[in-house]
């Protein structure tokens, strides 16, 4: 809008109030009229601003939600191990391996923890080999340390509970491997209880006990209690950036932490078992 046009409007406004029509607004009426018109315009602009923001925010929340819910129709990919060794649930842990194995490695992990996912993809296959060969036993402790880190919260607990229920019915290793194979990102939507039940079904866990146990959170409390105990267990604390704390994954043999940054940690563990 040009200045001339603007001035013309001012003149009209001034004329309406009958208080002179000079564009410089020297008449009080012209100023008042201009002010009134300005207020109307400001109100209109204000409404537009608020609307733009409201639409962006509401639309953004709906968009983000639907984007995160993309996984709701998917199935957790089944990963079998082909390893046939005993797997016995012991409280909130599962002891896997042949009785003859001389060394037992305690593995503390959380199904949502990215470092645990990396650990599993790096060493899962070698651990399976050693389990099958009867060289080690592994006690898997499924913790819910990152329970708030899924959106919505709860995946750590749900997945740990489900894995314990799978152990009760003899499918622990495959269930465990499948969950780490399709690990949700932190901050993403975790797999729902229905999806965990569906994974069980694909692995042959069709019992009502399994499905009911997942829905009711049968071992939720055991998982939480176990985590509270572990996080305050002295020998499981490690140095993280200058502070002692518990993190996942943590591996221990007896009361000694296993340094998994050493790529030969597994061979060393087996050797230690053979030597004893």
């Amino acid at each position, binding site marked *: 809008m040009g*200045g001339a046009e603007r*001035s013309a409007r001012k003149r009209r406004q001034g004329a309406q109030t009958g208080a002179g029509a000079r564009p410089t607004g020297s008449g009080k009426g012209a100023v008042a009229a201009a002010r009134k018109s*300005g207020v109307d315009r400001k109100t209109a602009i204000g409404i537009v601003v608020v609307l733009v923001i409201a639409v962006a*925010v509401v639309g*953004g929340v709906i*968009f983000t939600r639907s984007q995160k819910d993309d996984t709701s129709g998917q199935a957790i990919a089944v990963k079998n191990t082909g390893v046939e060794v005993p797997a016995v649930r012991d409280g909130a842990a599962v002891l896997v391996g042949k009785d003859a194995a001389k060394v037992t490695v305690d593995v503390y992990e959380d199904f949502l923890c990215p470092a645990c996912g990396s650990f599993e993809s790096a060493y899962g296959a070698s651990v399976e080999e050693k389990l099958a060969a009867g060289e080690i036993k592994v006690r898997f402790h499924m913790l819910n340390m990152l329970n708030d880190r899924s*959106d919505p919260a709860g995946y750590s607990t749900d997945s740990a509970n489900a894995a314990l229920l799978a152990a009760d019915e003899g499918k622990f290793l495959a269930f465990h491997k499948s969950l780490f194979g399709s690990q949700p990102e932190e*901050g993403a939507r975790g797999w729902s209880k229905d999806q965990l039940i569906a994974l069980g079904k694909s692995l042959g866990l069709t019992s009502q006990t399994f499905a009911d146990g997942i829905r009711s959170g049968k071992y939720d409390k055991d998982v939480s209690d176990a985590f509270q105990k572990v996080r305050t267990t002295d020998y499981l604390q490690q140095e993280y950036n200058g502070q002692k704390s518990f993190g996942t994954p943590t591996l221990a043999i007896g009361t000694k932490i296993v340094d998994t940054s050493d790529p030969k940690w597994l061979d060393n563990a087996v050797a230690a078992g053979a030597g004893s």
Partner: protein
Amino acid sequence: MVVTEPAVAERVRSGEPVVLDVIGTVLRLGLAAVWLVSGWLKVRDPNQTFIAVQAYDVLPGGVVSVVAAAMPFLELALGVLLVLGLGTRLTAVLSGVVLLAFIAAVAQSWARGLSIDCGCFGGGGQVAAGDTRYPEEIARDIGFLVLAVWLVVRPRTRFSLDARLGRAAEPVG
């Protein structure tokens, strides 16, 4: 009956310093860039944004989810409005409110001894105790706040929709 020349000439004559308009324009576009960049980096990684919001440890779970989903789009909306120069004063006020909330959030993390990255421009979440940048983060937000305050006090800028829609009708002294 005098028909005035275009707005600039009018204001030069009335003693309104045009240079302030130019400064305001630069600040407006600067603040717009801040919002657009920070909003875009957050929109691109909604999972990380969720982790970043949660790390402040202020909001309950369900609210974290909504805030993390809404905030990037709020920032983008503020950025777009500032680029357009539409409702500059109101947008600047809202920008200031959001920045004050950010500063408060960072300050409470600092005061409580949390070790987090503010996630102001993507990223965020827990960091090592020695890797926190609270003073820098707050200083940076205060810098942005200065831009917003200028635009609240003096929202008139060039190349803005506000000007096109006829700010001349607004009382400016």
